[in-house]
């Protein structure tokens, strides 16, 4: 009988993203949120040679700790960078094709990988809830070669069609839709990651496709938390559960106070032998 492990949904989400991060690839990571935590986890575990840039112009930093955006993102976040530049410089380098992957968290992602961070409910002119807009996510989702999205597995976060396309996925899914809108060729969403699932996109239709599912949930549980039915890979893989090393790094080095990790729901899981 294997040992029971306990972890939060936040930890499981970060671990699922970190498992995707590769050595010797370059990432444009959303500043100061969960994408940055996933990047730090990967750099301390499976991918110490993954490099990243953030949109304020910090190129390949080597920070000692995770620095949330609000708690005075000061020198700590820029520590040991190879260059301190600016937002336009990062945009230029992305437009030229230097950045392999973008990593973004999002409010809503739809079946074509379009994301919304502008408003939910009502109309654009009279929104029920207004949010902060695309920020740098539009640049990242447009120009990185491939983009990884993070979205909690909740029905309202996986609508068939987002209320507003703040940043582009495959748009209407049609062939060359992105190129026709002026975006660089051969780019687009790569993975959508939740705490219990990993999705890709069908190469022909550009519809979201379920690739792997956490071993502690059923397919029905998962589909109940989506507004549309994704394509389903055959065979459907199982996501690896969190390892002791990953949980230790998250809890002891990245968020020692548990302020962010503790916000998730606790999962108790006993791996089958």
């Amino acid at each position, binding site marked *: 009988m294997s040992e029971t492990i306990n972890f939060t949904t936040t930890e499981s989400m970060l671990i699922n993203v970190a498992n995707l991060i590769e050595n010797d690839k370059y990432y444009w990571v959303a500043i100061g949120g969960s994408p940055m935590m996933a990047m730090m986890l990967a750099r301390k575990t499976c991918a110490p040679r993954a490099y990243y840039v953030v*949109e304020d112009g910090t190129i390949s930093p080597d920070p000692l700790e995770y620095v949330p955006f609000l708690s005075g993102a000061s*020198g700590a976040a*820029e520590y040991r*960078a190879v260059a*301190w530049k600016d937002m336009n410089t990062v945009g230029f380098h992305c437009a030229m094709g230097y950045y392999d992957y973008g990593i973004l968290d999002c409010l809503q992602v739809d079946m074509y990988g379009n994301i919304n961070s502008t408003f939910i409910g009502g109309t654009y002119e009279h929104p029920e809830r207004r949010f902060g807009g*695309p920020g740098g996510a539009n640049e990242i989702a447009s120009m990185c070669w491939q983009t990884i999205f993070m979205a909690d597995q909740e029905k309202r976060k996986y609508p068939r069609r987002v209320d507003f396309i*703040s*940043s582009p996925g495959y748009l209407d899914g049609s062939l060359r839709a992105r190129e026709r809108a002026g975006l660089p060729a051969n780019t687009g969403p790569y993975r959508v990651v939740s705490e219990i699932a990993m999705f890709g996109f069908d190469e022909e239709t550009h519809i979201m496709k379920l690739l792997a599912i956490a071993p502690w949930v059923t397919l029905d549980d998962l589909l109940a938390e989506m507004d549309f039915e994704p394509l389903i890979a055959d065979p459907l893989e199982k996501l690896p559960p969190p390892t002791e090393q990953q949980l230790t790094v998250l809890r002891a080095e990245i968020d020692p106070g548990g302020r962010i990790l503790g916000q998730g729901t606790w999962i108790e899981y006993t791996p089958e032998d």
Partner: protein
Amino acid sequence: MDVLASGKGVYRTPDPDGHREWVRTHKSRELKSKVMTAKEAVEQFVSDGDYLGYDLNIHKRGPTALMHEIIRQKKKNLWVAVRFSGMDPAILIAGGCVSRIDIGWFIQSGTCSRAIQEGLIKVTEWTNGAVVYRQLAGAMGLPFLPLRYIGGTDTFEQSGAKLIKDPFTGQEICLVPALNLDVAVVHVHQCDEFGNARIFGSGLSPMETCSCAKKLILSTEEVVSSDEIRRRPQLTTVPYYMVDAVVHVPFGTYPGAMPGLYGSDPEHMIEMMMADRMDTMDAYLEKWVYAFESHVEMLDKLVGARKLIQLMQAETFREGYRA
């Protein structure tokens, strides 16, 4: 050139020749001292109805002292370029200074969301990058620039961007109109009395923001000699002839962090965010802005030397932030 699609967002029509005329007639080439108080600088160079921009945000190297002065002087109907912002648009909106914003991004803010939902301020959608890219076009003296993002989205539909067929390649590409601000307010690490300024650390768009503006107010942590500037010219971010006013304000970005010098004040940040969430920004502004004549007086009476020393000690990273 074929225009294939146009966003319906409101933008100010670019006017590169108008900007050149302004520079010709208003920007002094003389090496003269521009040192003045924040009160004098804002009285002289910020007008009701101005298009306002600034670099970074109230959490990091933002021009807090100058923003507070704009609020204190009750400037009205500003059009504010908001990108990569923190609570800065919230305090300007709460101060009644804003009638229109360009949105790249604002942090989750009750004040901003309410103002938009209730139609109190008008909005044009952009992205963070598109706003600084528009400033780059303005800083290059051009009417527009092509870019490889924003297209295909609802953001595009609500922006002032256009999709065209590129006359050189025949491929689709988006264009954004240049942005020349009426006034920019920027906080720097060091500058001399003429305005030759140094900024250390990652910047958002210090060069573009300073260069694209008709009027530029710098606040600085430290005034250094012009000889010091000329000893290390490579470090100069902004040359003097763009600068209209130099305001010496140590801790001028408080409660935000100044990289390499001091950290942000977490207690103040929580107070500010709670005021935003609880819709009590009036009381917040009364306490931190209206009650005082200047940033220095506020620091002296509400923050104190002990706290400021703690904030300096909290910034444990110094490498790279010195000449």
